[in-house]
């Protein structure tokens, strides 16, 4: 009886391990959330809160916001890779295998489409909608990739999509929804995943 139970456990583990990207670290979500809040706070204090007081023209404001957003993105991705590599090493796994590549590929299609679409919006002068488009496309990317990783990612994705639609409806409060979606939701889901998968 013991052996049968152990066998079933081994089978389930191997099925998961071979088809899902399980090296994703919950802590990287928390760090991404904190970085996003810091980035949003900077954007609010220096540009969005009182655009005329910043002493920058519209073109300069957009440049500052873009650099801010790209820095947030790079710091988040950097920590995600670093922490996932550490988790993979701890579990005696390679970070880059077939499953990882599949995960990255499926994540990047909606993400790149959304990124380019958002840049087009900015180019056309519609900066306000970008909080919504980044949230929606990011949510779609998460839902798309969730079949290759933890189930929580699916629900995080749906949350982001809902927030993105709300950000489009309440267009002038986009930064609030953006901060909740990229900041607070990342921290909450990151902590849940950290507790559930990493603290073992």
């Amino acid at each position: 009886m013991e052996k049968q139970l152990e066998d079933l456990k081994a089978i389930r583990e191997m099925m998961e391990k071979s088809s899902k990207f399980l090296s994703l670290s919950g802590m990287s979500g928390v760090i991404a959330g904190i970085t996003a809040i810091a980035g949003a706070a900077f954007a609010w204090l220096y540009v969005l809160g009182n655009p005329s007081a910043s002493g920058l023209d519209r073109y300069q404001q957009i440049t500052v916001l873009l650099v801010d957003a790209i820095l947030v993105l790079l710091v988040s991705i950097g920590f995600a890779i670093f922490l996932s590599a550490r988790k993979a090493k701890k579990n005696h796994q390679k970070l880059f295998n077939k499953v990882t590549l599949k995960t990255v590929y499926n994540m990047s299609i909606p993400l790149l489409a959304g990124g380019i679409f958002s840049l087009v919006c900015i180019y056309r002068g519609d900066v306000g909608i970008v909080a919504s488009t980044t949230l929606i496309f990011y949510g779609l990317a998460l839902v798309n990739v969730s079949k290759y990783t933890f189930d929580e990612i699916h629900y995080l994705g749906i949350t982001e999509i809902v927030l993105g639609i709300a950000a489009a409806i309440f267009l002038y409060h986009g930064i609030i929804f953006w901060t909740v979606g990229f900041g607070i939701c990342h921290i909450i889901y990151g902590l849940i995943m950290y507790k559930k998968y990493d603290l073992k």
Partner: protein
Amino acid sequence: MANIIANLNKAFESRIRLGIMSVLMVNESADFSMIKELLELTDGNLASHIKALEGLAYIESTKQFIGRKPNTKYTLTALGRQAFQEHLDALESLIR
């Protein structure tokens, strides 16, 4: 009880063979090095188990070249999928 035990497939008694079959159940195909890394095995050890499963016609291999490197890909046969499913069902009914 005796009946259920009879449904357990002797070929899957080894944990390594269970592992190989599990990987192939959820992946369309897997190459040698991928299975080796997942199961943390040596070449020789894995090769002997793969040979045994191939002998039973539970898995089949296709050889190909990726660039200049030879690469062997393994897939589950219909027979293998059925045999493993029956083994799984037997395991589950045993622990119930």
